[in-house]
């Protein structure tokens, strides 16, 4: 009630100032994205004289050629395989470990938790050379596993922390009841903790998926067969090949970020909450 009245009381000048400022920032965000998408519909000549406006002739072939080619889809599938496996492994491994830290008393539990939290303090790039040598010596170079396993490992610190805090806040009565009935830890984890933890599974899943889907440095170093490249690596190669044929590069960029944008708009609430909560809570 008070809110609506204060809206009405807002002077017209304030309102103009607000909308002008917000629209200006929105334009700065959107113009590069929109011109990229439109640029994919232009010829190179058209792009040169008219980078801002609508295409003088809508050229569909840039997009159509990419969509009917094998390259784009292969990269998308590669990224999807890597991201889904990473998410699955992260969820399984970190929820199990977090369960121990949340509910089981054992010698050195705190020290062990702190050990995992060291991972929160430095970026994966720090140890990228020794990591490369380790992956090479394990024979995992140029395989998806060479990307997936380090990604899972580097996500563990945050995921374990998020899961542990969530498990700890589940109502304690549950345990009393279950344990009295003779339920062991493993069954408790599987039948009670996990089913009750959907929100945190979603948070960890979203954070892990987004960072894996967008990741560049690990695949760049671990993979060297082009048919295995995930899309961020793929667009860099594509841009290297087609150089100044910007209309093709722009169409390719647009198609590669399109899934992200669509999913973002469909699941915006969860994604924004997941990405900010994931950062804040850890």
């Amino acid at each position, binding site marked *: 009630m008070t809110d609506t009245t204060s809206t009405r009381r807002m002077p017209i000048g304030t309102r103009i100032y607000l909308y002008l400022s917000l629209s200006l920032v929105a334009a700065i965000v959107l113009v590069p*994205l929109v011109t990229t998408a439109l640029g994919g519909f232009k010829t190179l000549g058209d792009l040169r004289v008219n*980078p801002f406006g609508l295409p003088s002739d809508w050229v569909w072939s840039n997009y159509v050629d990419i969509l009917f080619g094998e390259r784009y889809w292969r990269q998308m599938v590669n990224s999807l395989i890597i991201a889904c496996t990473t998410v699955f492994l992260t969820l399984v*491994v970190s929820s199990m470990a977090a369960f121990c830290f949340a509910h089981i008393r054992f010698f050195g539990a705190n020290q062990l938790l702190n050990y995992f939290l060291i991972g929160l*303090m430095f970026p994966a790039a*720090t140890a990228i050379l020794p990591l490369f040598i380790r992956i090479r010596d394990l024979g995992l170079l140029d395989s998806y596993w060479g990307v997936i396993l380090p990604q899972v490992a580097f996500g563990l610190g945050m995921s374990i922390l998020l899961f542990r805090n969530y498990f700890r806040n589940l109502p304690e009565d549950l345990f009393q009841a279950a344990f009295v009935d003779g339920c062991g*830890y493993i069954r408790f984890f599987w039948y009670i903790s996990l089913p009750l933890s959907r929100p945190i599974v979603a948070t960890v899943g979203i954070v892990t998926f987004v960072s894996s889907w967008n990741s560049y440095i690990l695949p760049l170093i671990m993979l060297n067969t082009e048919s295995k490249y995930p*899309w961020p690596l793929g667009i*860099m190669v594509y841009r290297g090949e087609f150089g100044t044929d910007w209309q093709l590069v722009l169409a390719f960029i647009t198609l590669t970020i399109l899934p992200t944008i669509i999913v973002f708009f469909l699941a915006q609430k969860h994604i924004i909450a997941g990405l900010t909560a994931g950062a804040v809570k850890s």
Partner: protein
Amino acid sequence: MTNMTASLGEASVPDAAAHVRYKSPTARGRLPALIIFLPPALLLFTLFVILPMGEAAWYSLYRWNGYGTPTEFVGTRNFQVLFNNAAFSQALVNNGLIILVSLLLQVPLAIWLAVMLSRKIAGVVAFRLVFFLPYVLADVAAGLIWRFVYDGDYGLFAAIAGFFGVATPYVLADKDLAIYAVLAVVIWKYFGFHMMLFIAGLQALDKSIMEAAEIDGATGWQKFRFITLPLLGSTVRLSVFFAIIGSLQLFDLIMPLTGGGPSNSTQTMVTFLYTYGVTRMQVGLGSAVGVVLFVICVTIAFGYKRIFMRHD
């Protein structure tokens, strides 16, 4: 609450064994659970995070091309080379510059937008969505898009320069300008994330303080300066912390824009590590960069938390 259920439980389970089991907080299967649940995480984390970090410290004392075992011990020479290297000094300066710009431009911008978007006006949700969008996009894609924007022949900068009839600036090819162009993209990419932090922080504020101030006749600026800003303190510290950590690992965004060039003017520590350590397989030198980065990150993580965030 717990006590209540405890007494209920005791009453309904007269059996002595159950009573004992009940009193101790452990259930059956403690050891099997630990044996099954902990090792996967422990193994992955040790193998791919902790050991490589330790090895980086070890390798940094050697000159090594990555094959066989490191034998050529050079002591601290890799570090001496590093700190006498102009490109690495530039990388350190650039990392510092990115942090500075985050503090002076990005955080205030994020607060300004968050305060505006906390008002009840039409279209708030749409604006939030648009401002957060760049954060969701991959750094590589954002970098390539801006490479087009900055392109002197086909890009938006060319068109703008053409419109005003001035010579087209090749921003990313100019070693004095390129770093500022990169900084602009960093802000474009990340301000939405910081804005969301502040929106969340503002929502958590106690509304009654604001109403009291309104009754006392505080102006908009006074309310912001003396109520909102001090109460947002913990969010500001959090946002600054993320800005620092994020800037230290900046790599994905630089590669498509400039690759660290022209003439090393846009190197960061990680692009330097990649260019001089990874592509040339100078494991010792690259590991030394890793060690420096690690020391900086850990110092900041501990120091910052201790000094600025101890009350949060």
